[in-house]
């Protein structure tokens, strides 16, 4: 009897916490397009996979690419996706089918800043289907985080308690069940055609201080995992191409020195790895008929609006072809 009670305590404790966790995950974590991406790579087979950051998510239309190249493409770029995350995303894709080609969208900022600890940095892990890759990803990333991030996925979303009703409503709707995108329209942005479409907002954009590139602050993990990604591709005969998306001319001018340094550094670095690097801010890769003015972009950092994104994707498709 005594022994039974001794076991009862931890068992009841773990079950209670698991139940609360389940409930709060459901009520606090809003629906995200990461869930759609994970659904896509589990159910469909892709030839071309885009990995990268928010610039890629806003700037690359997999629909345009698929139409122009005839190869089925998926865009898995996300804000907060570091090379480490990209590596495990690719591994997850390969559990279904090995793609022919991977395009990594490179933002030098992700190579010289520490990986933050916020909800969206954790989202890929949370939405990833149970798999061996997920276990590996856990040991590669989650273990370094605050234990609350790993054990209580709702931790970073606890501030959402005011929107709980709405979140639950969305999750109970048909759209959610069918992996629909209706929930993501917010007036200026929607998730459709497999990427984030920004409605053009003409006019001046506020200047901001940007972290572009500082070699002294290298994030060694980013380099390490990118190299893992590169050798992963090489071993499996997957073509790997690295691109940097266009940014506004004004930003390019103000941060000319950093951009040049970054370009020179990564040209040299990627060449050493035997990879092609297409930087669409360099003169030789400037896209014809593309509006490089700040007014056309969504913001100073250079997130593209939907028209720019489609024009850029068309060019990218042509270059890839």
């Amino acid at each position, binding site marked *: 009897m005594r022994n039974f*009670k*001794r076991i*009862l*305590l931890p068992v*009841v*404790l773990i079950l*209670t*916490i698991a139940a*609360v966790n389940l409930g709060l995950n459901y009520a606090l974590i809003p629906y995200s397009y990461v869930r759609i991406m994970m659904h896509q790579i589990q159910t469909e087979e892709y030839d071309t996979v885009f990995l990268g950051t928010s610039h890629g998510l806003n700037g690359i239309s997999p629909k345009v690419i698929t139409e122009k190249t005839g190869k089925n493409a998926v865009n898995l770029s996300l804000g907060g996706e570091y090379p480490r995350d990209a590596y495990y995303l690719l591994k997850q894709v390969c559990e279904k089918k090995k793609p022919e080609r991977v395009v990594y969208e490179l933002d030098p900022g992700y190579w010289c800043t*520490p990986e*933050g*600890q*916020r*909800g969206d940095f954790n989202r890929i892990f949370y939405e990833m289907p149970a798999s061996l890759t997920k276990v590996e990803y856990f040991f590669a990333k*989650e*273990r*370094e*985080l*605050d*234990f*609350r*991030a*790993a*054990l*209580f996925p*709702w*931790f*970073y979303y*606890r*501030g959402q308690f005011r929107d709980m009703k709405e979140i639950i409503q969305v999750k109970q709707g048909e759209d959610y069940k069918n992996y629909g995108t209706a929930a993501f329209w917010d007036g200026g942005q929607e998730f459709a055609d497999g990427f984030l479409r920004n409605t053009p907002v003409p006019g001046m954009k506020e200047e901001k201080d940007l972290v572009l590139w500082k070699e002294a602050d290298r994030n060694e993990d980013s380099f390490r995992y990118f190299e893992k990604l590169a050798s992963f591709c090489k071993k499996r005969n997957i073509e790997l191409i690295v691109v940097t998306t266009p940014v506004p001319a004004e930003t390019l001018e103000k941060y000319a020195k950093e951009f040049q340094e970054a370009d020179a550094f990564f040209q040299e670095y990627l060449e050493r790895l035997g990879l092609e690097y297409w930087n669409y801010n360099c003169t030789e890769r400037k896209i014809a008929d593309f509006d490089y003015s700040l007014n056309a972009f969504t913001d100073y950092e250079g997130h593209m609006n939907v028209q720019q994104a489609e024009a850029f994707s068309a060019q990218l498709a042509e270059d890839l072809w």
Partner: protein
Amino acid sequence: MSLISMEFLLFVLLAAAGYYLIPSKYQWMWLLAFSYIYYISGGFRVTCFLIFTTVSTYLAGVWMEKVPEGVQDKKEEKKRKKQILAGTLVLNFGVLGVLKYTNFVIGTVNSISGGDFEPLQLLLPLGISFYTFQSMGYILDIYWGRSQAEHNLFRFALFVSFFPQILQGPIGRFGSLGKQLYASHSFEIDRLERGFLRILWGYFKKMVIADNAVIFVNAIFDHPDIYDGLGLVGVLAYSVQLYCDFSGGMDVVIGIADLFGIRLDENFKRPYFAVSITDFWHRWHITLGTWMKDYVFYPVSLSGWMKSFSKFAKKSFGKQIGRTLPICVANLIVFLVVGVWHGAAWKFIVYGFYNGLIIAFSGLMAPSYRKWKKALHISDDSKGFYLFQMFRTFVLVNISWYFDRAGDVKTAFLMMKNTLTKFDLRQILEPGIEIGEASGTAYTMIALAVILGGCVLLFFVSVLQENGKDLTAIFARQNWLVKAVVYACLILLLPMLGQPSGEAGGFIYAQF
């Protein structure tokens, strides 16, 4: 490996599970292995410094014990021992001093001479202050004949590197800690539960109370010009943050050691209930205080030149003052060391000096106080006087926190002035105090309520403990359902009400 990281939890789990599965005579080796894994995970190169201190102190201890064999008389023996001691102290404190204070010296030289010497890029080994102090305490104990030298290098290495405590103390004594580390410990569920509860309580203090308070502290102390009306809130929040961060970290460390059957020394005893600054230092960072008392205060006070000073003082100022004055001087020296220990900056020197000065002053005034109290018919036992003393000490301590936290001495004085002249609580709802991911003030009131609620709970617990109630024992007697509820609440409140613990995810005292 930060104390709040997932990998640390897994690490402790693995260490504890294996500890009770292997034959008990290997338990200490198991702890040594895990302690070194822990240390090396923080950087391979800095481990050299740890090994240096371990080996040099070990050799000195063994050597010192062998001295009587090779010498003729007591005098010679003493001299030889003294040489070994001096060498060990100079070497180890030298390393600590160079690594921690070189850049402070360079900065000071630059600002005085207008020079432009480049600061050096120095490695700072984890927990260097703590393990250096612990090891030097060991060698001094051997020198004074208070303990025996350890003859097994690996056992000694465990004493220096025991992983729960190496990062932020408590500073252990070889006499009590060594025995426990090398003994075998059998599996005891009650002890594990006690440790588990202690760990949760520590995380609660750190994540829920301290990490909410730090938002206000940082906003107010880093922008004293914007929040000039909130000095009082800032300093109170800082006293909450500092106590909950440091003592919460200690609870985690002591709880983890409990899992291995090892009782570390307590580092905190409800410091804000202290009735004097002396009393405060008997309750705050206790192991540093007793270390300073045994290894700095007494030796300095009893040194030859202090004796001469005492004679001179007695002749010049009369017996009573002459007797107390040298003690006051020794005390000031101790607190300067404590101040410098807190960090290489002038504000910490002021902080130490301030504490030392108050204690020296009350030491000198003690006989007069006794007379006054008699004349005014104030009894030490009266509740009113007791509360008055507590309040007075709390105010004095808070003044010292200004120096501890403010950017520099000048800012500290400015903030103190503003606290008295510009008090304006409305500023707390001005935007800028950002809670978590949400900017603006949407969560300010919630964070304040959490801090307040946490402090009420903490106060309640502290009062019970202060009245001699052993809460862990009371908890252990509850039935499993009550326990499950308490555990579940403590666990779930960490993510629910706690704040992310900064980019570094660290405890304040883990940088020493």
